[in-house]
């Protein structure tokens, strides 16, 4: 199939070959239903917009920070995306074409993200991009994707308030992640008073805004007793810990990120507020298994995290995913919520492309709503009209070994609602 000449027997297959190929496809479909043949999808038809698609390859972009402060967080996403691409290629690729990728480094710098996004779209003509992590990097590349009609799969849970035709949000938006967790802690733990805490930027602030509205308007008799923000990279939390001790809240709702996270939990434990004692309960939406490695399991043991995926999920998909991930990247690796969401990106794109029968962005976009993945490690997911995913929300309890013990999951998929009424 590597022969690109139009006279190749594969370009104009004999009847017999078609039959055989059809039979092969049929047999294959029983086991790996997505194996399609490039010959059935001539390049001229699946790519009418000049994307980097050849008769046997299609090129996509990976755009994350390899260097700089965000490299810590984004490494997992890159690994997950590469794993998904490898697996898709092993199954025969997309429309019979192997995925090749061009990886660019955003260097934790938003202008660089915009620059590299433009390079990927304009120079490399990539068919889609898996990338970005922080909201700031997404905001920086968004105009580029909209101007050049690119297609971005964005893996991180984020603050919502956005719905771009050129982005698929494979992580949860804020209401999906927050509300279920607050309801849970209120119902099962009877929590009445909450202390909101965050790093000082848009995601924690918007998330806390939604949390505050929900606590004050929807939870019976519950109130917010404090709200506090510290600069990114802040490492001294003794003052806020003292305040928490005085206010005696039932729940510390913490959205601290990055290096601050490590400092916060170490100091919290050292100050005698043991999350395991649940006095107060520590509930976070920003600590995945990745972060626990830096914090140290013993410092956060007993805290609750609310997100859609934990490495310890026991369904078949996830067991296979974790196994494959460890085979590729080493036994020591841990997988967090965002890593799993990043893994969904290539698969969702593959499903959309195959549904559309084309790599063209407009057709893929049109085909995207309603795409379902039954093979997702988190379980069943489905793409909403608003380009976010329907997904379940789960609460996990941190353990000393750095894993979460899943204590709760929503009965149904939670509908994504990036512009929530009543929470603005």
């Amino acid at each position: 199939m590597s022969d690109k000449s139009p006279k190749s027997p594969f370009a104009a297959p004999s009847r017999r070959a078609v039959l055989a190929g059809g039979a092969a496809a049929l047999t294959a479909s029983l086991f790996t239903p997505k194996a399609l043949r490039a010959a059935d999808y001539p390049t001229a038809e699946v790519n009418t917009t000049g994307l980097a698609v050849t008769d046997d390859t299609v090129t996509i972009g990976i755009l994350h920070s390899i260097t700089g402060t965000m490299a810590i967080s984004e490494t997992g996403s890159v690994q997950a995306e590469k794993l998904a691409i490898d697996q898709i290629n092993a199954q025969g690729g997309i429309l019979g074409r192997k995925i090749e990728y061009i990886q660019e480094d955003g260097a934790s710098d938003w202008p660089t993200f915009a620059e590299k996004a433009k390079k990927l779209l304009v120079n490399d003509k990539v068919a889609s991009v898996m990338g970005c992590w922080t909201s700031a990097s997404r905001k920086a590349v968004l105009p580029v994707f909209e101007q050049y009609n690119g297609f971005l799969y964005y893996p991180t849970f984020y603050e919502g308030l956005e719905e771009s035709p050129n982005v698929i949000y494979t992580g949860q938006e804020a209401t999906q992640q927050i509300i279920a967790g607050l309801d849970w802690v209120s119902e099962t733990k009877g929590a009445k008073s909450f202390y909101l805490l965050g790093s000082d930027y848009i995601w924690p602030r918007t998330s806390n805004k939604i949390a505050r509205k929900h606590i004050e308007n929807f939870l019976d008799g519950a109130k917010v007793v404090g709200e506090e923000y510290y600069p990114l990279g802040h490492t001294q939390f003794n003052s806020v810990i003292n305040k928490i001790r005085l206010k005696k809240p039932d729940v510390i709702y913490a959205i601290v990120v990055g290096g601050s996270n490590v400092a916060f939990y170490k100091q919290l434990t050292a100050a005698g507020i043991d999350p395991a004692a649940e006095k107060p309960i520590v509930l976070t939406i920003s600590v995945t298994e990745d972060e626990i490695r830096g914090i140290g399991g013993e410092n956060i043991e007993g805290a609750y995290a609310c997100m859609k995926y934990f490495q310890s999920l026991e369904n078949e998909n996830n067991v296979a995913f974790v196994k494959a991930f460890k085979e590729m990247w080493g036994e020591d690796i841990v997988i967090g919520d965002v890593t799993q969401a990043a893994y969904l990106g290539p698969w969702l794109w593959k499903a959309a492309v195959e549904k559309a029968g084309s790599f063209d962005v407009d057709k893929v976009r049109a085909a995207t709503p309603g795409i379902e993945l039954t093979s997702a490690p988190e379980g069943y997911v489905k793409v909403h009209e608003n380009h976010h995913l329907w997904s379940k929300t789960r609460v996990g309890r941190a353990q000393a070994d750095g894993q979460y013990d899943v204590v709760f999951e929503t009965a149904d998929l939670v509908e994504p609602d990036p512009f929530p009424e009543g929470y603005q």
Partner: protein
Amino acid sequence: MMTNASNRFLSRSELIGFAVLAAIIFIVLPVMLDTFRLNLFGKYLTYAFVAIGLVLCWGAGGILSLGQGVFFGLGGYCMAMFLKLEASTPENTAIQSTPGIPDFMDWNQLTALPVWWEPFKVLPLALLAVVLVPVVFAFIIGVAMFTRRVGGVYFAIITQAFAAILTILIIGQQGYTGGVNGITDLRTLLGWDIRTDEAKEVLYYVNGVLLFVVLFAAQFVRKSKLGRLLIAMRDQEDRVRFSGYNVANFKIFVFCLGAAFAGIGGAMFTLQVGFMSPTLVGIVPSIEMVIFCAVGGRLSILGAVYGALLVNWAKTTFSESFPELWLLGLGGLFIAVVMAFPNGLAGIWAEQIAPRLAKLTKSGGASVPLPDAAKSPAE
């Protein structure tokens, strides 16, 4: 003859230097590069504005500011505020709870435009602010520091603290500034779409022209009595003071000038890149701007332009091919420039290449060796 030549606004070799740079910026680069790469070089050139200011402050004046990103950012933010207001028409922002204000304000529950944003609705005021805000800021810092004879290392560290303060402020006050995301999604300038390829090319040329305006201004300062006094101050500040000059005022002036240049560069950055964010204000970009200047040659304004182009080009290229090696390369560059080539590219040119060229052509164009920055005390 020599004194005559050095008193002229541009000596013959300098004239050639300017002409070559003009040819590169206005002819060679546009011919060689597609719009995407040209736009990138346009972005690099905005850093050259800062580097030229640093040549005056640091190379000539001996004042090393590690806070030039502050002025670059202030200029850029002034421009971005105007563009953001223009992009935030009630129609474009109909989905918000308060249409007509920038999206990030709406997300932060602001229901009206803050008063201090009002002037940025008018382009002339915004353009004025691009220069004036950094200058006023620099003036305040300059008066406080230089009249108290703070200099050298202390000045460097305090300007660095300013970079840290402004970054924390911008990120913390996100309802007013866009926070860590910065001010994004800028679209039009007086109705003219700045995102199209044609606009990018036009902006590149505007940027080039402005760069030359700044270059000529810097050259004028260098050739004036002020320029010579600055060098005298750098080498022997006390003697200049004892000669009856008010050293502080000269320093304040040149620091403000550097801030104005940086502000213009920042505004052009916003226009060409389409957004402004606090990552361009902080400590790291401020120090990187110093390295542009050091690589080009801290005494040469033309060198500063080449330095900004070269380092940024290397950064883009390296990080495309070997992202993991980029920091090693940049770090090595810092060390190499300081240890081996204190006069940067301009020094290599003046000491190595120019004399050989002169020998080859035998034109006898006596090259004036650059004063050795390394041997002159920097404070």
